[in-house]
């Protein structure tokens, strides 16, 4: 039973355009959501997070949107750059319930073409 789902395994976009990465979750107790970027042979790198009391958080080119009623979040990257090419993981936790462990999706490979 996968609690965090990234249904698209890959996405290819042109440099300068917007990249939209989607994530769905099933556990309504999740209250903290994060996006990580991963290059081969490296650990995941934290990008941006959002708590359930917000519906949007922005950091430079990265914006995360949270729709609690739909149990859906998305990561927008604008403008996309070739260096953004990596695997992106969505993760969630139930911090309010006393659990800081992260539940990850399977990841999505983003390719940004020059």
């Amino acid at each position: 039973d996968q609690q965090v789902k990234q249904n698209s395994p890959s996405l290819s976009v042109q440099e300068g355009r917007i990249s939209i990465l989607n994530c769905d979750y099933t556990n309504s107790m999740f209250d903290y959501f994060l996006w990580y970027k991963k290059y081969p042979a490296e650990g995941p790198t934290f990008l941006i997070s959002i708590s359930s009391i917000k519906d949007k958080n922005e950091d430079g080119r990265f914006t995360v949107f949270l729709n609690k009623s739909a149990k859906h979040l998305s990561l927008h990257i604008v403008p996309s750059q070739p260096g953004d090419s990596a695997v992106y993981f969505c993760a969630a936790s139930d911090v309010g319930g006393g659990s800081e462990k992260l539940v990850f999706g399977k990841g999505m490979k983003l390719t940004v073409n020059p």
Partner: protein
Amino acid sequence: GAGVSQSPRYKVAKRGQDVALRCDPISGHVSLFWYQQALGQGPEFLTYFQNEAQLDKSGLPSDRFFAERPEGSVSTLKIQRTQQEDSAVYLCASSLKGLQPQHFGDGTRLSIL
């Protein structure tokens, strides 16, 4: 260094051997986590410490897996009598407590022959 450090980066062991994986968290980080990542999958939770207390070990696959953090800093993940299905990347992460992001090391790639 400033980040989470894991050693060794690569470990090859024969089936049945014991292995020990080390994690040096970011200085001052209270929480420390171990995850297992299989090829093509997202990381899966193994266990979690707050300081030296192991608060959750629900993700450990069997009693062959054991983790410790005796002084609330460095942690070791030990796998006894390794089996082929233990082959994976083992990731360590640390964080400040609460609504704070976890920061990951580069992992140990374990291969069991």
